[in-house]
């Protein structure tokens, strides 16, 4: 009986590990505000946006870039895997923009839930969140657009 229970729990854990591999838990999706007309971006275009090089969407709406803290695991993963840049490069770029007057920096948010809330309520916003958080948050309350990165 007890053996059975342990086995069941063990099996569940094994299953969970298979379903939610650590990489899945941290897999991120690029999300945008519902009014954004763009549904896919190339890696290069995504870089231009997060490197703060382009300021507007093709339809002319100003782009608002949102990120998580430099030390946030999802942020680190997003910058390395999606942008191909180390978080310190992004910080250096944004700091130079901000403190030498040559550009701007993204808005830093505390957590992924804030990211989803704020982007769904803003115009022209872009950011990222992990798949699990997005799936977990009710789609009725928050309305974000998913952007394919090719």
């Amino acid at each position, binding site marked *: 009986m007890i053996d059975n229970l342990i086995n069941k729990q063990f099996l569940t854990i094994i299953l969970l590990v298979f379903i939610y591999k650590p990489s899945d838990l941290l897999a991120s999706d690029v999300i945008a505000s519902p009014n954004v007309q763009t549904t896919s971006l190339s890696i290069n275009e995504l870089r231009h946006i997060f490197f703060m090089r382009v300021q507007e969407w093709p339809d002319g709406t100003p782009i608002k870039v949102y990120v998580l803290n430099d030390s946030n695991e999802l942020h680190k993963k997003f910058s390395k895997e999606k942008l191909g840049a180390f978080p310190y490069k992004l910080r250096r770029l944004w700091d130079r923009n901000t403190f030498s*007057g040559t550009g701007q920096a993204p808005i830093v948010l505390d957590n992924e839930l804030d990211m989803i809330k704020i982007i769904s309520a803003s115009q022209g916003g872009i950011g990222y969140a992990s798949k699990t958080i997005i799936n977990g948050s009710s789609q009725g309350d928050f309305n974000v657009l998913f952007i394919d990165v090719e």
Partner: protein
Amino acid sequence: MFSLLMLNKPLRAAMLLLVMNSGHVSANSAFDTFQLHGFVNQGYFISSSNNVYGKSSSNNGSLGLTEVGINASIRPFSQLGLAVQGIYRKAGALNNEAQIDFALLDWTFYNTGNTQAGVRLGRIKNPIGFYNETRDIAFTRTTILLPQGIYYERLRNLYLSADGAQLYFNQSTNIGDFNLKISAGKPLDDIKELEVAFFSFDAPGTLKPKDAYLSKLEYESTSGATRIALSYVDLNLQYDKSTHDVFDAGDISVNLFILSAQKSIGKFTLTGEHLWQESNLSNFGVLPDSKLLSRSYFLQGDYLLPHNLQMSLRYDVSYLNKDDKDGDLYSALTGRPKHAAYTKDMMIGLRWAPNNQWMISTEYHRINGSSSLSYADNPDTNTSKKDWDLFALQLSYRF
């Protein structure tokens, strides 16, 4: 006059466009791009002898470095940015002032994503080496004290920013990003430090910056792990003689070239910069026309430790005259100690940044030579010491 006109035209055009477009682009979306950032920085210094940022050689040390800055930026149109930063800075007896650090209009006239070209007008930061453009922000300089052979603290105002124009060009490629900046302008006025630096005493007249031409080409790999930059500066100063002066109204021309390189491998980053500088003094009358070749370089290693800690080690060398490294000639000509002609600085530092906003840094310097000392904090050079130690502690905040 010319630069004022240039400044006014785009500004007026921008205002006009803003008014004309107010129906189309809502004021709200323009204001959406408004950003406010700032920083506060307090340093503490204690030295065995020689003063850095106040009376650091006194028993209690000196809290003589306070830096506060605030900046605002807005992009009313995607092609047009406006930015301004004000700084208050107290740095020993050297500085105690509030000033406009930059105030500029940025017009990106060409932008395809991969390529940007534009022009900036107003008060613009001088692109010199890796650090000059953001030298007053603790988070962007790797240590409390930047390598003094290249980022002379005593000539900070001259290097800081210039009133004029800058052309810029960015190109991103498969191997990384290339960035070119070309500036022309009038540097900010400096205090008497300038005269002491060039004449080794506070001359009766005033040495004034005339114009500066700067260019910097920088390459950064896509990941950010490799950076290379070349900076070239052509700086001209003019001496306004007083009624009873020993000198004639002479000219000083400074040409400097800096090669900067950085490579990060995992948690380790190696940074080096080398300066070649030529200063020409001419038409000073009693002072014969002369040429001074200065050299400086540093090599720094940074290692990222767990818990957001970073350790740094640096060796920094500078010679006022590369043909007089020991200062024999310098001492014979000026009567000042030989060690005022060079500085060799070995530094070990530790910094802790628990989050994006806060940072505590500390560093210890073992220094041989006194060429980096400011006249303001060390008025009697003959009492300065050749070998000395410096300990610094700094608390920094930004938003």
